């Protein structure tokens, strides 16, 4: 029995969030490959019937459909994380803070994510405007993560990694491919490294395993 079905596009950072969370929590699921590019299948009638917004990913749990990536992360954590730490929804402070960084991750989709689509797939948008917005977002994240360094903390919220870390990870990790290098962002670099070190971490094109953690390493 699989837990859900993911309508998936391998190069999508939002789809990757779901694969990453499922990998870390060892949740088995089915995938349906959607030809996002060059086919634009997500904008065809059969996909719009499932998700009128015409975005990926889409997740189905039996008859139930989820169309927002952050809601899907919440579903996976609430249903498949016995520790309860990945989504501390009921905690009066951590819960709202997780919400805040989930919302921030939506902004990243529209800044760094769009900048990536522009530079890799030549998406018909103002690439410079997307990059400017992405720099603003990266600086906001760096400021917060620097606060966390002052506190001796690793993750966006609280003492454990949460779905907020997963939601913010992909487009930040991929941003050098959109011409946004990480040279001026030491706190971001160390946070990305911490996410990539998580047990169960899975990869996507452009985000690979840490070589130094691979088994059989010599030297």
């Amino acid at each position, binding site marked *: 029995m699989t837990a859900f079905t993911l309508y998936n596009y391998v190069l999508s950072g939002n789809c990757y969030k779901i694969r990453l969370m499922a990998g870390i929590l060892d949740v088995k699921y089915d995938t349906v490959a959607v030809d996002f590019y060059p086919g634009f299948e997500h904008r065809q009638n059969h996909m719009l019937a499932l998700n009128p917004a015409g975005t990926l990913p889409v997740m189905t749990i039996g008859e139930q459909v989820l169309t927002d990536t952050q809601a899907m992360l919440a579903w996976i954590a609430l249903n498949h994380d016995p520790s309860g730490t990945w989504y501390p929804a009921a905690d009066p402070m951590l819960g709202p803070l997780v919400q805040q960084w989930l919302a921030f991750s939506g902004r990243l989709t529209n800044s760094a994510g769009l900048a990536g689509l522009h530079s890799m797939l030549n998406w018909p948008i103002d690439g410079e405007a997307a990059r400017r917005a992405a720099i603003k977002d990266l600086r906001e994240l760096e400021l917060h993560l620097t606060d966390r360094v002052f506190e001796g903390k690793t993750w966006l919220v609280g003492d454990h990694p949460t779905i907020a870390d997963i939601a913010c990870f992909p487009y930040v990790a991929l941003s050098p491919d959109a011409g946004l290098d990480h*040279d001026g962002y*030491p*706190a971001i670099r160390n946070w990305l490294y911490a996410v990539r070190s998580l047990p169960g971490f899975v990869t996507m094109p452009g985000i690979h395993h840490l070589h130094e953690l691979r088994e059989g390493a010599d030297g």
Partner: protein
Amino acid sequence: MTTRPVGLTRDLPAGRVMHAQADGKDMVVWRATDGTIAAWDNRCPHRGMALSHGFVRGNRLACLYHGWHYDRSGRCGLIPAHPDLEPPATIHATQYGVVETGGVIWVSADEAPAPDDSDLAPLRSFIVEASEDALRDAQEATSADGAPPAPEASDRVSVLCNPIEPGRTQVTVLTAPGLPLPRLRTLSRWCEAMRRQAEAKETA
């Protein structure tokens, strides 16, 4: 070449690699598992891959491309495609000087003297898309009124600049040691204000 600050000790833990720039040179700075640090020209002696994309294996830096390993002296110690071959001593990464004082990593192309050890503590390292001059003006302008988040005399703020290309400056900010958490947060926001001001001026 002068000695330039390229990052903070706390931001480069053991086993990690970073890219740095100073005086027009592209560098890889990495820390071995035993904690020792090295700064090299950012080109793999094999085919020129940026070594800053590499990874640390024990006390060697491995290139991401074909996996050649270099020990701390820069000498190639392993060629994975020919594991039994003793790599010739001529295969060598180009080394730069690197020292750490007061929690700051300093590099130089020659044997330039290390900066004096200060009792200040590192706050942040970041990049400003503006010249050093614009940054110095912005430092003054955003400090002048003394209203939060501006620094106070007791913060003993010191701003170090590493001009990395025209209109792009790496900035390291130091403060008095042992400041309380709310003060660190405030001064970190002052860094943002200074950067905004410097960049607004640069594009004006």
